[in-house]
Each structure stands twice: as C-alpha cells, then as structure tokens.
C-alpha cells in the first residue's frame, strides 16, 4: 500500500487474489467487499444503501443474479480515467454457478456509492420479439437469418432497395419483390447506448449499444443491430462494422443480426 491510503497498481493484495490497477483509495476495499457480502446475503436494504440514491431504480434493474447466492469475491479494482473506481465481484450460487458484476463507484459527500453496475462479460439482450411480423412482410429476412444469410428486400423490376419491407415497390409500384443475399458490412450511421432497463429482458444486458449501419451492398439502406462489446466502446458515426448472425436459439427462437466494429 502506498502512503496516504492509496493502493497502487498493478498490485495483488497478499493472498486474497485481489488485483488492483491504478490509484485506488484503500478504504474502498472494505466498502466493496462488504457490498459483495450484503448482496450475496440477500440483504436488500443494505444493498440499496450502497447505491447512488438518484438512480436506484435503474441500478437494481440493470443486473441479473441467481436467487440463491452463497458467497462473493472481490477480485479486481481499477481506477478509471473518469475518476470512478470499477470493482469486479464474483458471486457464487448454491448450484456452484458464478456470475460477475462490475460496479463503478463514486465518492459522494455521503460516502462511496455505486453509480453504474453491469453483468460481465457483456452479452447482447435476447428479445422474445425477434422473428417475423404477423403481416408476413419480413418473413424472407428472418428465414435468411436462420440460414445464416442477410437478405434485404429489393424490387425485381427497378432494383430499388426497400427497407423496412413493404408490400409494393414504393418507386415503381411493382409487386414483384425479391430478397437477395447481401454482404453484412457497412458503416455506422448513428448509434445509442441504452442504460435504462426498459423491459425485464434487458436486465443483465445494460448498458448495450445499438448501431444503425448503412449498407453499401443494399443501396445504403440502414439496419439496426446491437454492437457486440459496445457497452464500453468508443463509438463514432462512420466507423466500419461487420455483421454477425448467431446460430438460431435452441428454444425455437430466431437469430438476429449483430454488428461488430471491423
């Protein structure tokens, strides 16, 4: 430990396995360790007391943990450029499974508080809504994804690219529409990083970044998708992205297009 009560990284704290990176105030170790213990013990009042009071609702909805935790282990503390300190805590459930949460701590007048928290590693949200619309208009798109291909609607008569899918070509009014396979690559047209867990399915997955990518192979049509590992990424309009289509979920759900910085 350095003078002034500051742990200096990169150091491991004798025997506990705690890795400290950067200048981390020494007092924080006990605070965060205790936080892990109260979370593991299911002490909701003590858990909430550790959270920044103006965002408790967002914070408690941000993560997903098994119901029956038996222990916690703080294994990494890292001072971050924005003045916050990130803490990685591994929680072990009764069945032996482990879940890691990364909390970020801020020093307020009332003490150290959690100002952000998320599950790590980052996994894109899986939404039950994925799949064709009732109208059937976008069926070929989803069937394409199931086959590992990106298919976008195009007019067979005038070659106009159409997105979102429509029943008729809005340019020449032909009903003869086709679904060619296009290369899933483009550039970021815009993006947003969502922090608010708007639905239960988002818990454990926020923050996540969605990009709107412009596809040269489809007449600059734009497609939405979660940016893999985008929760912390420095995202900019104009960056190149590559599409990824995961395997179909085993429960009969539909695969979705994801983007990754190229």
């Amino acid at each position, binding site marked *: 430990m350095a003078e002034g009560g500051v742990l200096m990284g990169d150091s491991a704290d004798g025997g506990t396995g705690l890795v400290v990176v950067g200048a981390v105030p020494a007092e924080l170790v006990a605070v965060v360790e205790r936080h892990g213990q109260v979370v593991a013990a299911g002490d909701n009042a003590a858990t909430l007391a550790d959270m920044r009071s103006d965002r408790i609702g967002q914070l408690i909805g941000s993560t997903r943990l098994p119901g029956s935790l038996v222990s916690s282990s703080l294994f990494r503390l890292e001072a971050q450029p924005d003045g916050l300190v990130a803490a990685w805590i591994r929680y072990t459930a009764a069945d032996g499974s482990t879940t890691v949460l990364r909390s970020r701590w801020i020093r307020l007048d009332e003490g150290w508080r959690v100002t952000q928290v998320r599950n790590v590693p980052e996994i894109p949200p899986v*939404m039950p*809504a994925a799949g064709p619309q009732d109208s059937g208009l976008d069926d070929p798109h989803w069937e394409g994804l199931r086959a590992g291909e990106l298919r976008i609607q195009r007019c067979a008569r005038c070659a106009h690219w159409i997105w*979102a899918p429509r029943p008729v070509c809005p340019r020449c009014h032909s009903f003869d529409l086709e679904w060619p396979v296009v290369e899933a690559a483009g550039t970021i047209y815009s*993006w*947003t990083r969502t*922090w608010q867990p*708007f639905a239960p399915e988002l818990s454990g997955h926020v923050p996540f970044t969605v990009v709107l990518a412009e596809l040269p192979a489809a007449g600059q049509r734009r497609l939405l998708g979660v940016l893999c590992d985008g929760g912390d990424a420095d995202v900019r309009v104009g960056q190149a992205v590559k599409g990824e289509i995961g395997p179909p979920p085993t429960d009969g759900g539909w695969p979705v297009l994801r983007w990754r910085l190229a």
Partner: protein
Amino acid sequence: MVSRDRVLRGAAAVAGIGSTPFYKRGTSPHGAMRLVLEAILAACADAGIDAHEVDGFVSYANDLNEGLAVGAALGVREIRWSTMVWGGGGGGVAAAVNAAAVAVATGQAENVIVYRALTEADDGRQSYGKGHFPSLLSAHGILTPVQICALRTQRMLEVGGVPPSALEALVQASYHHAQQNPDAVAYGRPLDHDTYADCRWVSEPLRLFDCSRENDGAAAVLVTTAERARDLRAVPAHVLSGAQGGGPDWSESAENDTAYTSAGFHPALVARLWEGAGIKPGEVDVVQVYENFSGPAVASLIDTGLCPPGEEAGRFMTLPNLVAPKGALPVNTAGGNIAEGFLHGIGLVLEAVRQIRGTSVNQVPGADVSLLLGGPMAPLVSATVFGSAATL
C-alpha cells in the same frame, strides 16, 4: 382574392380551454373517461357555452375514449364531426386542432372539442409508443421512443454539429418556466446545470432530464368559428394556419427516413404553414414545441427556421434567449411536457392559447403569434399557428 392556401386563415378559433391536474402517473383518482369529461366541462365553462352544444370530437394517438362515447356521456344534442388523427403519437396533437378548425371552417360542425387523456391504469406504461415497435426494432432491444430519438439526436449532434448545450438550454427553459406555474409537476423543483449534467443516462445522448414525463390527466380545447368566438367569454385564439404530415420517405421505415436528423417538419410543410398564416418565421412571438425529448424539440426549431442549424444552434439556444418575457424566442412557457407534465402534448395547446389571451404565467408581452409544434421525430408531425385578433 384569398389564396387557396389561406382558406383556413382566421376562420376558426379556440374559445375554451380546460384541464384536470397533472397527476403523478398511476395516481389519478378517476379513470380516463371521467378525466376527459372533467376537462371538456371545464373548457366549455371557460368558453361560456353549454356542453350539450358540443357537436364534434377530435383526438389523436388512439385515445381510448372514443368521441361518440364521450358525446353520449355528455348527452350532446348532435354529433356532426368525429375524427381520430392516424399515427404519430404526440405528432398528431396540432393535427387534431387543425381537423377541428377545418370542421368549423367548412360548416361541418360548430363546437368541436379536441381532447387527450392518459392514465396509467387505463393506458398502461409507455402508451405513447404502442404499435410503433415492430420486431425489426424490438429484436435489437429498441423498445421505446427515447431510443429512436436518441439515435436521431446522436447523428444531429455528431454529424450535424449541434452542440449538446442546445438541448440543455431547452430543458433549462422548461424548468425555469415551470417555477412560475403552480400546476406544473416541476413547480418548486428548479434544475441547475450540475444536476442536469450529473443525472443518469437513459439512452445516450439523452439523459433523464432530457426526457418528458408520464402523467395521468386530461385536457381539452373548444374550437368554434371565429365569428362565434368573438361573442364568447374568452379572448379568441384564432387559427391562422395548420399543417400536418410526413415528408418523402418519412415514417414506418425502420430508421431509413431520408431526412434522418430532421424532426419531420419537411420544407414543403413548413412553407405551407407560413404561407397559410401569412407570416414569416421571424414574426412568431412564442413557441410551444413538443418535447418528447430535448433533441427532437431542437430539431423542430431548426426545421421550422426558428433556430439556425449546426454549431449556430448553440449560440441561439441559450437560456436567456428561450425564456419569457424578454427572450428572442420563448419556448414552452408553462414548462412543457418536460416540466409541466406529459399528457401527450395537449398541455402545449392550452399554453399556446393562453399566450394569445395574455394569461400565461410566463406571458410574452403583446404576443400576437403563438406557434404549436407537435410530435418531433414521430411518424407524423403537425403544427398550428395561432394569432390574436390583431393578426386577422
């Protein structure tokens, strides 16, 4: 000869306004229908007409309380006009006023009520977004309007060069005005820069305070002919012009709208709005701009030529410029959706009328032209220009 574009000009006026309180969401003591009836009765009392004389009902955003049921509850003598504006959520608010004005201007009806009610008990949470999130959006975790507006705002900032300070100025102006409005949910809760800058992200680049609220409540306005309005109790707010719509490649395109960072007030629509009113944008005295979120509201002011685009927007969008009584362009003088309360924008209509009457708690002295802008970055947008008698 009157230009064909100006057949509406001065033909109709708002003669009555009424509102329930803005209840915290989920806390209304009554269901939405009761709130609608309270608001309509208040609007009729304000105008000084018997509610049995109402003969038309207009709403928007799929209000659950159908006009015919409202009319039956009130025991009106006759219903001559019944209109629901299709699509666009709050983008339909001014279109609803325009539809009522068209009805009375063409003799289809005489006393048309425009109304909107929301309660969490009847409408659920986030009722404003229902039906607008097909799986091409929701499969990617895009579930709410704020995320759509965040995507568009991000590009407006990053590529369009509008500084984030423009967004904050709009929010600050709303909170500033709400401090004079005892009916506002943010009354007594001023917002300083540090609190704004330090609040949590909802969906970048939009923070908590960039977002409107959800409230329970209802409000209504009574639209009648200008001729009749002159004989009624209140100072008429004349409809000078109205416009609604979506531009080329606008809406239902899974984020492929051509003018992506626009609020949706495309040039042809804006030209019709000013031409119909017979004014230039510089003659607008005060604006009620729908702010689902701060970014789209700024885009609305840019679309309509009231605020310069790009970096210049930051120099124009400052707190002193945006507040009554002396700002160059006072906006959302009752606090707006952000600080007064959110009933899908109907509160903005009432405040636009108050500015013409001279009864706003943040009155712009001598306001003759009062602009209402509805529903930015929504599938449908709309606008109404109100004018005093002096503008006719």
